[in-house]
């Protein structure tokens, strides 16, 4: 009887131990692969007595999140979050984005002013287990593009044209740590800068490394919002050619003499953002070594989320 009891206890304990280990790993993996977007216009919420906003989530890891909850805390506001928790299936297995709706009510006696509210994503079954997501820090951030009317597409990275533009870098690839995916920063980084005028989006692409490569391409993904499927424009720095499913009318590409830098111009209308005040963008780089082996690196998201603008960065066109 004692042997049976011991055997049953061990059998019950083992899955719990395994689950605990898995639960801890998923919080580490979620650091870079749980996309979070706070739907607040211009990154700033203005509230009289009550206001609502949404927090969108997309799981781009290689496994599901069994339960996730959102807490919103602030001494100045009372927050109500719906739903209490949710299951987030991985996009790799068909999972779609989920959202929490947050309603904030100003507490009595709170004067007008600027305040911070804290957002925390955690495991509802164990509040000490907090999801680590760097995206949450910039989830409501919107980057303003300076007007690029002065950009001349000549392959030269002139400071006067590009110095004030935002830079998108810190690309990463994916590897395996134990049995799950791990983000690995690229040794050879790409740097992408954006500018815009009334008709065109200008892009400066700077390719680090890639010596002896048989192929080296950057792809720009653009969508007017988080719902619309993005338009992808691929720029090949070695051939100085652009490809796009919507055609290449109006696209200009000019590399530098050493082909490490490419300037390009893409009509806003082709990207579907003409007349839009803001858009969402993402970048990838596909580097093919001399032996033909390809490595794909990402600015945001991964292969499962490339078509999901919720993981992209948000940019505002100067008015």
């Amino acid at each position, binding site marked *: 009887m004692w042997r049976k009891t011991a055997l049953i206890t061990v059998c019950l304990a083992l899955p719990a131990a395994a689950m605990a280990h898995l639960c801890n790993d998923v919080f580490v993996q979620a650091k870079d692969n749980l996309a979070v977007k*706070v739907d*607040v216009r211009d*990154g*700033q*919420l*203005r*509230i*009289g007595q009550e*206001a609502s906003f949404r927090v969108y989530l997309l799981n781009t890891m290689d496994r599901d999140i069994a339960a996730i909850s959102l807490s919103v805390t*602030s001494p*100045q*506001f009372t927050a109500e979050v719906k739903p209490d928790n949710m299951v987030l299936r991985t996009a790799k297995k068909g999972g779609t984005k989920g959202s929490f709706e947050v309603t*904030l009510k*100003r507490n009595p006696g*709170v*004067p*007008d*002013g*600027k*305040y*911070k*509210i*804290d*957002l*925390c*994503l*955690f495991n509802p079954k164990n509040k*000490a287990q*907090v*999801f*680590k*997501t*760097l995206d*949450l*820090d910039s*989830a*409501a951030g919107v980057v*303003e593009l300076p007007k690029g009317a002065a950009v001349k597409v000549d392959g030269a*990275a002139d*400071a006067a044209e*590009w*110095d004030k533009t935002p*830079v998108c*870098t*810190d690309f990463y690839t994916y*590897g395996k740590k134990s049995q799950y995916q791990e983000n*690995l*920063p690229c*040794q050879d*980084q790409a*740097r992408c800068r954006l500018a815009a005028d009334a008709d065109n989006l200008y892009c400066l692409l*700077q390719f*680090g490394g890639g010596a002896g490569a048989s192929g080296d391409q950057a792809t720009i993904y653009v969508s007017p919002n988080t719902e619309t499927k993005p338009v992808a424009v691929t720029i090949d720095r070695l051939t100085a050619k652009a490809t796009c499913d919507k055609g290449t009318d109006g696209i200009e590409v000019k590399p530098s003499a050493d082909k490490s830098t490419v300037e390009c111009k893409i009509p806003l209308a082709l990207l579907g953002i003409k007349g839009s005040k803001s858009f969402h963008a993402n970048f990838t780089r596909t580097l093919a070594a001399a032996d033909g082996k390809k490595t794909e690196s990402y600015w945001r998201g991964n292969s499962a989320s490339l078509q999901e603008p919720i993981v992209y960065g948000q940019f505002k066109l100067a*008015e």
Partner: protein
Amino acid sequence: MSTGSSSWPSRRLALPGLALALTFLAALPALSAAGAEAVEFELAPAGEEFFAADGQAAPTPAPGPGSCLVIFRYSRLSVADLGQLALIGPDGKALPLLVEPLFEEFGRIADARMVFSLPEAEAAAGRGPFTLKWGPDTKGASSRTERIAADPAHRELYRSLRPRAGAAAGNVASIEVIADSTAEYHFLWYLLPMSMVFALLLARKLLSRGEAGPSRS
């Protein structure tokens, strides 16, 4: 009336000038701020990207006895002169920093791998903040090196830096909320410049009608 007619050219310049000034003042909140010149980090385990084998023989620099090497990379610099780059430790003192420039842009270092030494006893994960600062008003103890390479045979002697997490425990982020009793009417602020211009133009028209009236009679 001679007084009115002789002051009219100055009035013509004053009204549009005033309208422009009002429009500029209204647009001031929309101007975006300049890029950051300081970033806070905390200690973290050194990632695999610092131990990638590149065929070179000796790690540079080598960790001294009783110390760790903290190796990190930052790709959003804008440093024209290494003397204007500093790493400030948790005690507020500048730490000697070796810098391997990885990418230069517009005549400035934009991306660099950096390393500094720390006593092992002070190298616990999460310790910070370590503040990387750069700019004309910054003076640091930074010097250039051709190559920084970590020794994969002694990973325990290496640490790295990661951007500092939120102030609260766990991983909590904040967004800014503006409590504004006039929030429901805030959008009317954007109508103010146009309203002022319209009012000034209307006033100008009424004044010019008033001046034309007596001369006709």
